[in-house]
């Protein structure tokens, strides 16, 4: 299956990935588990300070459809429930668990009860209970993506999910979009049987929908995976090596030819659901083994680690603890980025925990860390040439810089997909993406 459309964009420098594909990170001594994913939607804790918990035990829950439950990722004692900084630097109520070193799991887990005789509704319930989160953006509980027609319409209306079209295409995103990310390719190789099971489960969940597996152009489907895929009705989409193919809006366009209606729409409006390949493995574990999401495959690179390494990390592990295990690190990292090099968030401190939204960590030393300059735009047009949304970032950035937000809106600022290419190519090193986000935020507050 090939591209249904072409897009601008850039070729980013290629990256090396180290072997073995995925290692297990050592068990952390302490985890900090944030009780929510994005911003203000937070679970209520269902445990108390001093309580003993096992790995996989429920510690936070919410009635809100868009909040995934939270489970303990190690066994031990709850030492505190208090605010902690999350990825974006906001405070979020978090549960802190001190490990007892045994990692003893709840008995029900690893039941391997299979999924072949489960109905779609049961699958969804299991999925919701396991707290699996699709990384996005926007990140949201995976079950919300598949809550198609059946369960009451008003319920979805009330929780604010505009389900205007049933899902007819599911795209499994196996493309490592940005430098620093390698988890998806590794997952596709290492968990090939889970990926195949995941496709079977998706077929049960959404009936007749078409399933497309999108892979890197170079990361051809490994032989175990292609063996597993034989006989399944799944189409393989091979992308080209160009950023931002792996970002959902562009991927959807290239696979289906459809565009997400902006500024307010989302993928559900056009009947598409995108599932991250790594999330798909959690989905399988959730319904097959009743195992909640307590881990995340995180790619680590930078500061001397030239070949990206993938680790299976327990949720809530502090970045500091991960740094301490890294023997390949050269020099003190001055910047730590959660996410890819193009769209990731620079962390405020190394005391921030790995969460369900962290799929990569990049360490940068003083020489690697870039900065932006306050210089004026020279109208060279490089950003225009590369913008995948076909905007004029030069003009938009000037409107935002001089607080002309309504003019920026009229020139389609809200159609920017925040890929960061304009800032990557700008010869004057203007903070383009920042200006776009700033303008969008001002407009949303207006």
């Amino acid at each position, binding site marked *: 299956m090939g591209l249904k459309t072409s897009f601008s964009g850039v070729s980013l420098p290629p990256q090396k990935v180290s072997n073995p594909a995925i290692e297990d990170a050592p068990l952390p001594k302490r985890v900090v588990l944030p009780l929510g994913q994005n911003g203000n939607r937070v679970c209520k804790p269902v445990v108390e300070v001093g309580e003993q918990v096992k790995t996989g035990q429920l510690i936070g829950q919410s009635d809100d459809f868009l909040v995934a439950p939270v489970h303990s990722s190690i066994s031990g004692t709850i030492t505190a429930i208090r605010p902690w900084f999350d990825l974006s630097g906001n405070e979020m109520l978090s549960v802190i668990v001190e490990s007892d070193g045994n990692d003893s799991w709840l008995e029900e887990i690893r039941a391997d009860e299979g999924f072949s005789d489960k109905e779609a509704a049961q699958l969804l319930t299991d999925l919701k209970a396991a707290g699996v989160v699709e990384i996005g953006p926007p990140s949201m509980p995976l079950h919300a993506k598949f809550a198609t027609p059946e369960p009451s319409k008003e319920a979805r209306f009330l929780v604010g999910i505009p389900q205007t079209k049933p899902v007819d295409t599911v795209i499994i995103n196996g493309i490592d979009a940005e430098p620093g990310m390698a988890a998806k390719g590794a997952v596709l190789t290492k968990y090939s049987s889970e990926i195949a099971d995941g496709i079977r489960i998706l077929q049960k969940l959404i009936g007749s929908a078409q399933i497309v597996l999108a892979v890197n152009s170079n990361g051809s489907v490994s032989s175990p995976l292609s063996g597993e895929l034989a006989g399944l009705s799944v189409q393989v989409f091979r992308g080209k090596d160009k950023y931002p193919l792996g970002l959902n809006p562009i991927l959807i366009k290239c696979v289906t030819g459809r565009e997400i209606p902006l500024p307010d729409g989302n993928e559900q409006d056009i009947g598409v659901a995108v599932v991250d390949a790594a999330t798909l493995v959690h989905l399988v574990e959730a319904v097959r083994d009743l195992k909640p999401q307590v881990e995340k495959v995180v790619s680590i690179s930078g500061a001397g680690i030239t070949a990206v390494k993938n680790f299976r990390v327990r949720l809530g592990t502090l970045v500091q603890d991960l740094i301490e295990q890294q023997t390949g690190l050269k020099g003190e990292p001055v910047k730590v980025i959660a996410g890819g090099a193009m769209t990731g968030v620079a962390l405020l401190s*190394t005391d921030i925990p790995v969460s369900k939204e962290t799929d990569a960590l990049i360490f940068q030393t003083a020489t690697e860390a870039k900065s932006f300059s306050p210089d004026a735009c020279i109208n*060279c047009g490089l950003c225009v040439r590369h913008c995948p949304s076909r905007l004029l970032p030069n003009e938009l950035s000037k409107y935002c810089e001089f607080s002309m937000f309504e003019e920026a809106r009229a020139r389609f600022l809200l159609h920017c997909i925040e890929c960061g290419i304009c800032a990557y190519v700008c010869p004057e*090193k203007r903070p383009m993406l920042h200006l776009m986000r700033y303008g969008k935020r001002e407009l949303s507050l207006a």
Partner: protein
Amino acid sequence: MEKAISLDKPMLRVSVAPHIQQKITTSHLMYNTLIALVPALLAGIYFFGFASLKLALICMATAVACEAGMKGVMGRKLTIINGSSLVLGLLFALICSPEVPWWTAVVGTAMAVILGSEIYGGLGNNPFNAVLVGWAVARISFTEQMTTWIMPEPLFGLEAGGYIEYPPLDVIRVDGVETLVDLPWLDLFIGNVPGTIGTVCVAAVLIGGIYLLARRIITWHIPVSFLASAWLFGLIFWLIDPEVYANPTIYLLSGWMVLGAFFLATDKGTVPVTAPGMIIFGIGCGLITMIIRYWGGFVDGVAFAILLMNALTPLLDRVRPRVYGRVKQVA
């Protein structure tokens, strides 16, 4: 409430995405343009002697000095290092006759920097091509000095091409098309004719232009549409009446056509940035150039064609493809 994180540890640097940047900087763009102009300058030295080099150095020094002065007067950050003034100065020299007196060149370059660029805020903010603004001032104020020509005298190797005594376009204007019938096209292509320092040798200019394309400093849109539209327009008239209108290829190989298409009409900031805008811009430049060459008051139309199209640039930037996600809202 307890503080989430103690602040006594050394803090990390926090910045907005992206966390990597392409290596290309403004200086990279400018110095590559400078490199691309070297063959044209060398050709100028070869055909017209070291006076060409002297003129180029004078213009470049003037441009740098004027930029520094203006930046100082206006209290702005000095950006000499990015090389844009060097490019401006060199381009100005290349579109002058080797006979231009030094003071004319100095005045022209100074006008280019001050009136053409700095009073608008410098590089990228000027609406009109600064080099051409300076040239227009000089050409109109010092017509005689700017239009005195000398015969090419190759430093070594080639015989001096003594077939015509003024630049080919002047010959067509003054003596008619038939005078050029026997002019060897090779002389025209390698520059063995009278003319301005950097434009006579089309071969050298082309090498520079191809270098710019290969290094992706410019895109093909403007040069290709400029040259193609001029040639096709010329072809039509040549087919109608070859007695009056010369072969379109002669027009392409003479005057500033190629230098204009690759270097002047691709000047950053004064030309459109969208692909359709650039193509319309190029076509406009090509047609206006030919119209001026056929019927206008100036012999070579490139400068005024580009200046005219510069004025349309803000309008042409409105011609753009549909943006992502702009669909009728589902009701």
